[in-house]
């Protein structure tokens, strides 16, 4: 009883004590009270981790004398109104995914932070910083670019307009009785990978079809219309390059590339490639595809193709891609994304190419390691191995089972119908499944997906750098990772670029340790103070 009283008494009296004996003496010199702050976060339909993270973070921040209003926001509303629409009221705690093109630092530095950038929802604008992040993008020399990227991170760190709290850990669980060599696609999630784990996997039994127990359907096999299934379509349509887990961009359909001018990239295709119908893949196909994409401007591809001016053939295997402006990120963001359509099947099509039903027309044909076989809506997709591919997998094909709900996926994995499940189950659930069942193995996939803490940089108190820095010091990344994400996230590094991006990350940025007392001291030094109830007040004007 006595112990219980002690346990209760400490958390209740500590803040009161601090408030009463710390700064109350100066209460008459305080400015207005810092108003209640709203924290927007993804609503529970995206998973419980967002609310949980927002709550544990706000619990610590409230020790600075702040009060918060929690505001769950549905994903699409968050994106339209807050990320893009400029509707951030005070703060947001949310994640951005580990998209493959985000292995380039431009997304983190420019797209989320430069003046006027469309996704700069934190509304921070620093012209000097913006100039730096635009310049780095144009530096074709990688050593020079890395230095510029690190400089920009230092600038961002010094100003602290927002910060990452955690990096997401994805996972996959697979049937290890039937499959081996199921490798990690880090830093991207398994559904965005190709070489890992899909092409590397090897069957251990006579069942040579790799069954992927997944949540949802793929909605199209027309790459011009793709929205959410970029990874799956790249099974069928080859891209020019691939990003590997070391952060390098390696040749794929392109044997090599070089910047002959800052706005001209010369690409040589791999020899001997064919489409699934047996026709050779040539520079004509690549040039046709790129020029068609530039002409049609498919909405789903708009962000990635915005800087493409066109392409022209040099010889049967060589062609040039023209850029509108110099763009070093082209190699890491466009080459692993841009696909090759067979000109002989598309050139004479007179309808709207973006809306073309390629399955009905029998032209779901690319040159990728898998060939389209079957699609039954909301049920199953079957791709068979294209044995002539230069890196054909060592099994007969891959099936994607669209099961629609987590219990069915779990059931498929337990019954052996499913061979692999990826991010469609909570990572903790996948880990538990593997622990409880001998035939299942689990692999963590550390990613560059990040949970960010955004502040409205155009509104007090966030216009004050001292306040922002105090909030940063009072951010418990550890609690967010452990309690918000049940351990399936790791505390993020410093600065906007995720530490998982290796060479792009500025490891020299000093680590900021979570320390409430230091945060309070910083606020006090900046003139803030607390009233008798422990509530934070602005400095007196």
């Amino acid at each position, binding site marked *: 009883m006595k112990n219980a009283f002690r346990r209760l008494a400490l958390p209740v009296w500590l803040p009161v004590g601090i408030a009463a004996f710390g700064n109350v003496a100066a209460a008459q010199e305080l400015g207005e009270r810092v108003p209640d702050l709203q924290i927007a976060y993804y609503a529970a*339909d995206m998973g419980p981790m967002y609310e949980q993270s927002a709550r544990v973070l706000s619990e610590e921040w409230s020790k600075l004398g702040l009060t918060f209003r929690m505001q769950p926001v*549905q*994903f*699409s*509303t*968050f*994106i*339209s*109104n807050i*990320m*893009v629409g400029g509707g951030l009221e005070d703060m947001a705690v949310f994640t*951005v*995914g580990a*998209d493959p093109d985000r292995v380039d630092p431009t997304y983190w530095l420019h*797209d989320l932070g430069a003046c006027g950038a*469309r*996704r700069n929802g934190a509304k921070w604008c620093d012209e000097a910083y913006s100039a730096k992040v635009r310049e780095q993008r144009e530096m074709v020399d990688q050593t020079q670019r890395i230095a510029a990227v690190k400089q920009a991170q230092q600038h961002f760190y010094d100003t602290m307009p927002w910060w990452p709290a955690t990096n997401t850990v994805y996972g996959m669980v697979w049937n290890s009785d039937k499959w081996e060599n199921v490798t990690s696609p880090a830093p991207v999630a398994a559904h965005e990978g190709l070489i890992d784990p899909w092409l590397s996997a090897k069957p251990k039994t006579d069942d040579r*079809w790799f*069954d992927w127990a997944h949540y*949802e*359907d793929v*909605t*199209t096999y*027309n790459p011009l*219309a793709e*929205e*959410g299934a970029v990874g799956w379509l790249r099974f069928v349509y080859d891209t020019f390059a691939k990003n590997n887990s070391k952060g390098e961009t390696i040749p794929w359909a392109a044997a090599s590339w070089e910047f002959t001018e800052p706005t001209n990239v010369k690409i040589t295709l791999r020899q001997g490639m064919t489409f699934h119908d047996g026709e050779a893949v040539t520079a004509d196909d690549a040039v046709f595809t790129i020029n068609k994409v530039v002409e049609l*401007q498919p*909405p*789903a591809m*708009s*962000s*990635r193709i*915005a800087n493409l001016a066109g392409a022209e053939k040099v010889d049967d295997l060589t062609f040039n891609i023209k850029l509108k402006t110099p763009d070093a990120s082209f190699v890491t963001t466009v080459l692993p994304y841009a696909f090759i359509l067979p000109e002989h099947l598309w050139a004479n099509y007179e309808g709207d190419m*973006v*809306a073309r*039903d390629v399955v*009905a027309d029998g032209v779901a044909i690319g040159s990728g390691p898998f060939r389209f076989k*079957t699609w*039954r*809506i*909301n*049920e*199953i997709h*079957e791709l068979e191995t294209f044995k002539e591919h230069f890196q054909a997998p060592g099994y007969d094909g891959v*099936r994607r*089972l*669209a*099961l*629609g*709900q987590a*219990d*069915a996926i779990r*059931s*498929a994995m*337990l*019954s052996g*119908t499913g061979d692999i499940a990826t991010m469609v189950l909570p990572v903790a659930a996948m880990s538990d499944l593997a622990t409880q069942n001998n035939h299942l193995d689990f692999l963590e996939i550390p990613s560059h997906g990040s949970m960010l803490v955004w502040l409205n940089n155009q509104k007090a108190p966030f216009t004050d750098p001292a306040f922002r820095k105090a909030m940063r010091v009072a951010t418990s990344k550890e609690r967010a990772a452990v309690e918000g994400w049940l351990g399936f996230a790791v505390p993020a590094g410093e600065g906007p670029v995720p530490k998982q991006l290796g060479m792009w990350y500025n490891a020299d940025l000093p680590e900021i340790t979570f320390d409430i007392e230091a945060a309070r001291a910083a606020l006090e030094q900046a003139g803030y103070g607390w009233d008798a109830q422990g509530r934070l007040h602005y400095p007196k004007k």
Partner: protein
Amino acid sequence: MRAYILRRLAQSVLVIWAVTTIMFFMFRVMPADPTAILLERGLSDEARNALLEQWGLTGSLWDQYVAYLGNLLVGDFGSSFLYRKPVWEVLTPLIINTLWIAVPGLLLGAALGAAIGTAVGWARRGGKLERTGIFLATVIRGVPNFVIGIALLTVFSSTLGWFPGFGMGDPGQNVGFARYFTLDFLHHLALPLIAVIIYFMPENLLLMRSGVVENRTEDYIELVRAKGVSQGRVAWHAARNSMLPLITWLFPALAETIAGIVVIEIVFSWPGVGRELVLAVTRQDYPVAQAAFFLLAVMIVLANLAADLVYGKLDPRVVYK
């Protein structure tokens, strides 16, 4: 009679129009943006506007509404935002999948419900059979259908392993129409079908029981009995005359069952129109969601109309005015 039919048809059209209108505006005023996923990936303003125009989401709400109604009148539900195909092409195979569990489920549920209802109604009043029958029917009727589905999955799929727990067939099996006549399909069909039967049976059982209880004391039953036929034959006479409310109830029940099947399809991962409807709403695929709701509304209205008309045919005492 003709005047009655015309009046009921006009009422039906009005109801369908009202539902369509509510659905249209509901999806437009919802704070959801079908381009959000692309915006998060950097969709430009121009590209977004082009997309919205292509999807018919630009201009005033009134203009969009008029265009939507115009298309609807010629049977054009538009194109799915996600699949980029006409909505009909997306929904047709899914409707067929749904009918595979809805129609047999409804008919078997009705037949079993009627048979058990007759037995319960014919049993001794206050006896064990009657009390058990009514108790079970009432309990099952009160249980949400997803609970029935999950219970079946737990027992027959997860624990006993007798039936598959999801989908319409094992991977790599037959495709095309022939698949519907394979053992693999029937094996997958069993659990969702049983769930629909169980969900649907109690209503029939109780209706039938009430009818039999009412009829068993009628004079004509005494007459049949006096002829010296078996108890079964006597019960059959009572049952036949108790079927009228059950038959008329089958029509709205079909529509109701299809609406209730949404949950069954989700629990069993059955690729039907109900599951697609839920996915379409969560993915903001308005044309598919609106079309699915529209079809449900039309079915319910037509079923009610059919029930009204059939009732008159079956029961000569009913007079249409």
